[in-house]
């Protein structure tokens, strides 16, 4: 049995990044989109989480200068922080998914369709 905290936010963020590098706002949009708006990770939760992931070496970061089309080439655009899933992050994600699946099948054992007749817990 894996000893990981079942933190869904981490799992969700890591799997979004597994699809490819992304930045803060895009990550939060992807999460909302993938969950049909049911799952919302607030900035208050997401940005500190991203920082933690970076510190743990699960993601690497880089800065991009974002410029508007047709803007003055000498003017400085705003800076965008990109997050990329590291090899360690990939491994960790796999661990999380495995733990999630184990938990899933454990619970499934309790809530099989026939069990309702035997007074399955509400």
């Amino acid at each position, binding site marked *: 049995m894996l000893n990981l905290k079942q933190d869904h936010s981490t799992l969700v963020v890591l799997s979004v990044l597994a699809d490819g590098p992304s930045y*803060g706002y895009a990550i939060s949009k992807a999460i909302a989109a993938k969950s049909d708006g049911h799952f919302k990770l607030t900035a208050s939760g997401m*940005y*500190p989480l991203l*920082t933690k992931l970076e510190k743990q070496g699960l993601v690497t970061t880089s800065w991009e200068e974002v410029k508007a089309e047709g803007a003055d080439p000498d003017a400085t655009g705003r*800076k965008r922080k990109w997050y990329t899933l590291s090899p360690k992050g990939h491994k960790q994600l796999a661990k999380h998914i495995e733990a999630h699946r184990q938990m899933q099948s454990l619970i499934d054992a309790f809530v099989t369709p026939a069990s309702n007749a035997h007074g399955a817990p509400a």
Partner: protein
Amino acid sequence: MTRTPRNNPTPRPPTSRDGIDAWLDVLTSMLALPPSQRAQVRDELEDHLRSRVDDLLIAGSPEPEAVRTAIAELGETAQLARHITSANHTPKSFRRFAMNATFFVLAGSILTAGVSMMMPNAPQQQTSAAGQTESVETSRHQPAESDPLNAFTINVRSATLSDMFQNLESHTDRPVIVHWDQIANLGFDRESVIGIDSQPIKADLVLTILAERTEQEISDSIAVLQTDNRIEIGTRSQFDRRTRAQKIYDLSIFEDITEKFERNLYRGGPAQVNEKTLRTILTLLEGQISPHDWDTAGGDLASAGILNQTLVVTAPERVHDQIKTMLHELHQQHIEQQRAHQQYQQQSIERLNDAFAAIRESLKNVRMEIRAKQEELKRIGTSPFHNINDPDARAQAELQAQALHAKIEELKLQEQELDRRHGQYQSMLINYEFKDLISPSTQHESTSTQPTDAPTYTVLGEVHRPGLYRLPEQGDLTLSRLIHTAGGIKDPDTQILLLRNGESRMLGRVADLNASDYADMKLARGDVVRFSTHEP
């Protein structure tokens, strides 16, 4: 590093201040972080807000409303600032931990668990630098110089890691080598502020605190390797990698003894370990000893596999040490279990034997009674009364005879029943006895410590000490010597049965032994001799 510019529908000149800038100013002022980090947080959140506003504008929202919405979505400003600060800064758990009064009691045990200073006393096998074998000492026994890690205290509120290591260097004449590149993997760098809210404390304690926390979160920590000629500071995984070696562990010691007997008796062959036992051992190993380091758990320091009945492990030295200890403990348990199983079997056999003896006793008694009644019947038939012409006397005699006949019938039924049960118990006993390898005997140790190829023979049945014995090193083993070794027999009428190479032979009675042709018979390895008082 800049990428190709992306689409930005509504350009916003950075020089004009707006609601977003104002809000960002407020947030930034609430961040208890170094200026460089504050700037980064600001940049990232600005990008977030402006991207959000762009989306809202595209969706048709008027600008002031879009800005308000975007900012509101970020939540309460102070809370956001707090969360971001603590994520970037040293976590609160440090402070709690350092202030914990019981910490100093725990420190000892953490030192052993954690990594940094607890390297095994034996010189390491693997060498990293050119052919030098390193002898590693624990921080407990230090040579002439006192432990430099204990020689000074650090202002843990404001000092950086770099400060601490420089301080360390000035307290020792050995060079201090810091592997910053490795330490960076833990999320620390030269400028990392230790940031523990506490009075100044000693360096080794600081490292312990850091180790405790990072081990929990990322299964690695800062480690110190002290040798005679230098002090290295790196990560636990880095030093572990140096001591990685492959070792082979023989798991045949976990053989199932209770199965071994039958195999050796009829086919011979090496001990077999239960497949399930092997898998359980591997699972235990990877679950209990540095779980995160195994390749099966996503780590990169240790891997193990089972080959036939050996365990092949590639791992750092400290993992091997723990494996040795664990295998030893498991083996002790295994021996206990096997002994308990054998004892249970032995007890079952004893109970069977008792029941069997009781039945035999009953059978004997019933037969005696039958004989007695038959005698009585005979006496009535031949008694002088029989020929008297006294009708009363004759009638009485006939009644008696009938009663006796009836009684004898009854007894014969009992005899039949007892005989049947006698036969049943006897087969059960034979079955059990062939499975019973060891009986508690004062003459030898349990076979788990005996080499598997020692020549042995087995004595079963009605002797005082049935069991497994080693063939004598001097002289031949005759039946009389065997009987003596097994403590003698209980009944001279006992029959001797020899089981050799899968074939059984009834030899005869013990009473007739000396005069028989099997008196000089030499017993061999693997023979089973069974003594029984079963009446043919």
